[in-house]
């Protein structure tokens, strides 16, 4: 009954994928921008968190709090000083800016940390939360999933019930009208990017605890984020969770049926299938409540 194990792992892994994709989905929903640096920013989060854990504060939990603050500041400045300046000039300059940021980040990491594989060590890494005859649940996968649900729930509440959240949605809905309500849309974009980077910091921690990472792994997570966001529908939070779970399940079931070499292939076959059948994503922003 290994298939139960595969389904379970796929489901839990889907949670992690959702956290990886959610910041990208948020930014696309708000300003129609595909942030090509999202994967690298996640890896920056992982490196910052790793360094803090190993050398400064000792505990992963203290480290993530500081990492979240640092990453939010980085997001605020990237948006405020780079992307906001080119946003009025059409879609391409902003896209290229994020591409430039992506290259700068991965090379800076390479310069400081070298090309070695790293991971964030924690007591979760190898332990099982519980196991039965049929299956076992790894602690770190369970933690990934639990934190994913928390991140999505908190983001949902912020967007739905706060003045800031409403201004984000208003700016994404009708930017001209939002300006007329007195919203400083550029500032809102900066805060939205800071929020997206909070999710990237958390994704970085989880990725670092679950897998190994290198300065160059950002692209890999960018592609996962892309997959999640395209499957779920750009800009929809619930869709992101759904997208993550579908991608996770597709990968692990692909590995179960055809062998682990087909894991990635199976994931992207499902992605292509969904693009063919429902190109706007399962829960695109247009059909959101």
């Amino acid at each position: 009954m290994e298939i139960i194990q595969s389904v379970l792992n796929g489901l839990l892994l889907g949670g992690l994928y959702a956290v990886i994709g959610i910041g990208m989905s948020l930014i696309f929903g708000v300003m129609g921008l595909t942030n090509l640096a999202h994967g690298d920013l996640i890896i920056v989060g992982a490196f910052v968190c790793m360094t803090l854990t190993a050398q400064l504060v000792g505990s992963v939990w203290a480290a993530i709090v500081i990492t979240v603050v640092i990453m939010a500041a980085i997001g605020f400045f990237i948006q405020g000083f780079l992307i906001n300046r080119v946003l009025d000039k059409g879609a391409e300059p902003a896209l290229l800016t994020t591409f430039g940021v992506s290259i700068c980040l991965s090379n800076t990491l390479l310069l400081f940390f070298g090309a070695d594989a790293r991971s964030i060590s924690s007591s979760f890494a190898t332990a099982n939360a519980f196991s039965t005859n049929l299956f076992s649940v790894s602690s770190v996968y369970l933690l990934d999933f639990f934190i994913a649900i928390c991140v999505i729930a908190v983001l949902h509440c912020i967007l739905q019930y706060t003045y800031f959240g409403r201004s984000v949605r208003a700016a994404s809905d009708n930017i001209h009208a939002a300006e007329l309500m007195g919203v400083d849309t550029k500032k809102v974009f900066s805060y939205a990017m800071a929020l997206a980077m909070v999710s990237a910091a958390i994704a970085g921690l989880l990725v670092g605890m679950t897998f190994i990472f290198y300065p160059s792994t950002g692209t890999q997570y960018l592609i996962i984020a892309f997959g999640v966001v395209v499957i779920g529908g750009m800009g929809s939070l619930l869709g992101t969770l759904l997208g993550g779970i579908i991608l996770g399940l597709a990968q692990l079931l692909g590995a179960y049926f055809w062998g682990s070499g087909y894991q990635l292939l199976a994931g992207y076959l499902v992605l292509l299938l969904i693009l063919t059948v429902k190109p706007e994503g399962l829960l695109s922003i247009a059909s959101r409540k």
Partner: protein
Amino acid sequence: MTSKDLLEINNLNVHYGELQALHDISLKIRRNSIVSIIGSNGAGKSTLLNTILGINKPTSGSVLFLGDKIDGMQTNRIVAKGVSLSPEGSSIFQKMTVKENLLMGAYLPHTRVNTAAKLEKVYRLFPVLKEKAGQQASYLSGGQRQMLAIARAIMSEPKLLFCDEISLGLAPIIIQDIYSTIKEINEEGLTIVLVEQDVRRSLKYSHYSYVMLKGRIVLEGKPSELLEGEVQDAYFGLNKYIKC
């Protein structure tokens, strides 16, 4: 400018690149009045509004609100000073509920007080919005959207409200409804500027009128003193206005 004037525009010129869109516009909006700015398509009404709201920058001239220069300021600052616009084509937030749209009207921090009372007020003016409060705004009819745009604009308790093309695409009976509410809002003390193509109705409801043609103000006066033929000629650019 006397303290009776809320807004004063002096010799305003606006260019889009080489093209001059507004020529030497001067006008005054008196406190507590309803003023109409009338003109056909392309007369420069929207450019004028966008310049007042800080979306376009003038090449020369000035816009004064309560004696302060506001031309060149960022839109959100101008709105914060108490200028509100109910935009043309009632551009509402379609993916948000009616109530959320209204709450966006009171987004600026100093307008976030007494939200419940302000909601009650706009629900009293536009009862249909109360019925639809929880619905997504994209399900509203054209008239209801227009009402929502106006209601949203007054949620910030502005000092000056611009209404761009209220009557565009609406049935006469609904326009009538909205205009009576506009009058009611004005009688409660709000200064209102109607920017319209609908000449007859806006003249009927306003205390003072400006007629625009090809980026210029070609006629102004109290509606009671303007001759209908004169307004028509100015609006269509006939007779002595033809050289403009």
